[in-house]
Structure formats: C-alpha cells, structure tokens
C-alpha cells in the first residue's frame, strides 16, 4: 500500500497531486488570514482574532460562510461562460504548481520520492504556458457578466496581464541564459554551486518583481479591481462559491509568484551556512530542512506582497501600461542583451 502511494506509478502521482493541492489550498487560506492580520498591524489595529487563537481558524469560518452564501446569477449573463470563467481561473492557477520542486531530495519512510509532481524538461515554460491560459478566466468573467463595470474591468485586467507577461518572461530569460537549463531544479542547483541569481541578475529580479505584482493584479497595479474605480472589476457580478474561486485563484497566483522568486533568484532551498551542517545529517532530514528553508523564503515573499499592498498607492491605468511597455520591456530586453554580452566575454 505504502509502496503504491509513494511509487512512481499513476496512484503515486495522483496521491502527490492531492497532497500538493491540499497544502497549497491551506496555504492560500492562511495567506488570506495573514493579509488581514498584517493589514491590521500596519493600520495600528489587530486583525481577526475571534475565531481560534490569533484568528487561526478564520479561513475555516470564511470557507463555511462562502458555502452558505446565496448564489446570485445575473439574468442576462451568458450562463455557460459565466460558470466556466472562475473554474478556468482556479484551474490555471493550481496547475502551474505541477513543475515547482519543493526540495532537492525527499526520503519518506525509507523510500526516495521526487519532490516535484512532473519533472518536465521544459520546466518553467509550463508555468508560463498555463499562466497565459489563466487570462481567459478574467476576460470571460468580464464579458459574460453583461455589466459595464465587469467588462471594463475584465478587459483592462487582461490587457495588463498580457502586457506584463512579456517583461516577466524576458526577465527570466536572463536567468535561463546563466543557468543553461529550463528545469527549476537545475536552476536551484546552479545557484547552490555558485551565488544566488539575485546578485548575478539584479535588473532581472527587479523587472520580475514588478511584473509579478502586475500579473497577479495586486497593488500597486490593481486598478482593474479597485473599489472606487470599477466596483470590483471583473468579479463584480460574482457571489459565493464562484467569487471564492476567483479569490483563491488570485492568492494561488501570489503563492506561485513567491515560489518562483525564491527558486529563480534567491537560491530556492539553499542557505549558505546551513549547507555545511546538513552534510552530516541523513538525506531525509536534509530534505525536510531544505523544504522548510524553501517554505520560509516563500513566506517572506508573500509577506512582501502584503506589505507592498498596504504601503503604496495605486497606479493609474495609463501609467501602468506605460510602465509595462516603455520601461519594463526595454529594461528586460537590455538585461538579456547585457547578460549575453557577459556570457560571451566569459564573466558570467
């Protein structure tokens, strides 16, 4: 039984998928709580603290509330795409985690388990591919709601996402040139053997950070869903479970972007002074410590997301688009050219 669950066959993969999805969804629920707590502390108040110690059971309360809320479907909405949009958004957000490695080696109950669901050769391209399909969830939500605010919000949001997809992909190209492989595990191994990529590709990291904020529609780039401007943008007409799916999709994107930043630029599961100590431990313990280091770094970046949200004011839509096309894209291209020059001269 254990052999089947931990093996490499179909049952093993399904079990791993269920486990990873469970963990991701729990983390997403708690990021929502963390957002409210951190927002509270930054605004000199305490966040939710009624449900459970320090409000830890708040995600559970939220989930139950959403299940019992009334589902309102606008009469003139295009039913098929109205229901399809949130499903598409959440599916795209969660499927990207298939190629994210969580540790370098995992040894569970004496068996070697690959710490990644699908170790594709094209690695990071899978994430870009599935993320670009996530745009459809937003476009369809905006259109099918048959509401002016939703349509405007949906079109603006998707235009913003595809604009920043370009600079995000190009900023990663610099990292790929330095590493020479598309697999995320190879990128981390390269950083483990050398220096963290943020020191080799600082411009690339800054462009990636900005583009990741714009991709996930988070402040300072959240005009498409800002209350005073567009009511709630593309998810204006959604309620209860469908809204919950959009909400979870947004936070799943935040978890994904944080994981990518850790893996691509900050050494993934590598901490310089810990590596020496871990050499003396068994592979199982080392794998677990690596996972905890990775998780800690991802948590830091999620905290960064929340911190920036409650600190900076919002960009106006034309300022946002100008930044994406006239600043981020040329910067990313220049970064690629400069990295190519450095590699040619043998420096990087």
């Amino acid at each position, binding site marked *: 039984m254990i052999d089947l669950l931990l093996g490499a066959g179909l049952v093993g993969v399904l079990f791993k998928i269920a486990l990873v999805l469970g963990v991701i969804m729990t983390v997403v629920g708690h990021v929502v709580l963390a957002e409210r707590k951190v927002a509270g502390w930054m605004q000199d108040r305490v966040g939710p603290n009624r449900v459970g110690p320090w409000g830890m059971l708040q995600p559970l309360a939220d989930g139950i509330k959403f299940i019992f809320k009334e589902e309102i479907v606008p009469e003139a909405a*295009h039913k*098929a*795409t109205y229901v399809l949009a949130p499903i598409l958004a959440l599916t795209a957000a969660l499927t990207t985690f298939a190629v994210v490695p969580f540790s370098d080696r995992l040894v569970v109950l004496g068996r070697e388990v690959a710490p990644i669901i699908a170790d*594709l*050769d*094209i690695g990071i*391209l*899978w994430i*870009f*591919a*599935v993320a*670009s*399909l996530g*745009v*459809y969830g937003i*476009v*369809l939500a905006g*259109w099918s709601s048959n509401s002016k605010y939703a*349509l405007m919000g949906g*079109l603006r949001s*998707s*235009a913003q996402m*595809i604009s920043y*997809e370009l600079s995000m*992909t190009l900023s990663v190209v610099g990292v790929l040139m330095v590493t020479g492989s*598309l697999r995320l595990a190879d990128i981390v191994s390269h950083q483990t053997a050398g220096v963290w990529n943020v020191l080799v590709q600082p411009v690339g990291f800054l462009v990636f950070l900005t583009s990741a904020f714009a991709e996930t529609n988070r402040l300072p780039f959240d005009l498409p869903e800002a209350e005073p401007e567009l009511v709630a943008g593309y998810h204006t007409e959604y309620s209860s479970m469908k809204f919950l799916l959009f909400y979870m999709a947004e936070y799943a994107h935040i978890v994904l972007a944080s994981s990518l930043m850790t893996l691509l630029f900050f050494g993934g599961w590598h901490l310089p002074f810990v590596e020496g100590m871990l050499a003396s431990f068994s592979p199982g313990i080392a794998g677990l410590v690596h996972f905890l280091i990775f998780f800690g770094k991802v948590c830091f970046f999620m905290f960064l997301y929340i911190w920036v949200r409650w600190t900076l004011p919002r960009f106006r839509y034309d300022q946002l688009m100008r930044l994406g096309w006239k600043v981020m894209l040329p910067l990313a291209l220049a970064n690629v050219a400069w990295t190519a020059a450095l590699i040619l001269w043998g420096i990087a």
Partner: protein
Amino acid sequence: MSARELVFWADAIVAVMSAFVVVLHRNAVVCALALVMHLCAIAVFFLLLDAAFLFAVQVILYAGAIMVLFLFVVMLLDPEGRGMGIRVGRVQLGLTIVGASLLLMGMARALPSAMDPSPALPEGFGGAHSVGRLLFTDYLFPFELASILLLVAMIGAIHMGRKEVER
C-alpha cells in the same frame, strides 16, 4: 494500443469536436473559445509527437496570446454575442461539404504509403536546446526574416488600428 496512442485518439476527438464548434456555432465568442480548446488539443498532439518545446510555444503564443487578441476583437465588435450564421444556402452548403469530403478522400489516399516513424530519436529531440541550436545556425536567415515580418506586422497593425483624426 499503447497509452500514447490512446491519448492520441482521445485528443483527436477533442480536436475534431472543437473544430466542429468553431465551424458551426453561431456565437463568435463561443467559436473563439472552442478554437482555444482546439489549439490546446493541437499542443497536446505536439507533446505526443515528442515536440515538447513546440507544445509550450503553441500554448504560450497561439492559445495564450493570439487568441486573447481574437477574443478582445470579438468582444468589442459583438458585445451581446448575437453572432452571424452561415452565409450560403442549403444547396451550396451541401456542395461544400461534398467537396470537402472529396478533398478528404483524396488526401486519405496518401495514407497507406505513409512512412513508419523512426524508432530511435537523437538526444534532446524536441527540446529547447535542439530548436535553439538549429534556429541560430541552419535557419538563421528565416529567423531574421521572421523578426522583420513581425516588425512590419506590428507597425501595420498599429497604423490601421488607429482612429481617424476628425478634421
């Protein structure tokens, strides 16, 4: 039938079904969405044929960028989704279908003489390295031409998409 062939035929059914929706459905937005599903099905074909890099490029480029463009235009030009149907009468539709079937049968005549797939593949077949290496050596000239083509297309699209200035 191996697992790969099973997935191939399942994917072929998805591709043909979505192609039918694209060709027959009235609402242009539904047609565009069906085309997105069709493009993803084609991408899965590429994956089954050991072209992993092309699979990623097809989804990122075609399904993820070109079709978003399509969808924008369709939504702006036909917001309520009323759509337009078929242009020709029944007789012409029937003749078109007959003609297409004849074409299909003509193409099917090439099937028995189709070659068998080679069993051994070179290392890294279909990966990014193989594509990149060829792109910058044997196919450098088409590559540069393609970039000029994209530049021309960009300039043309921007120019034609501009609103006319009121005089």
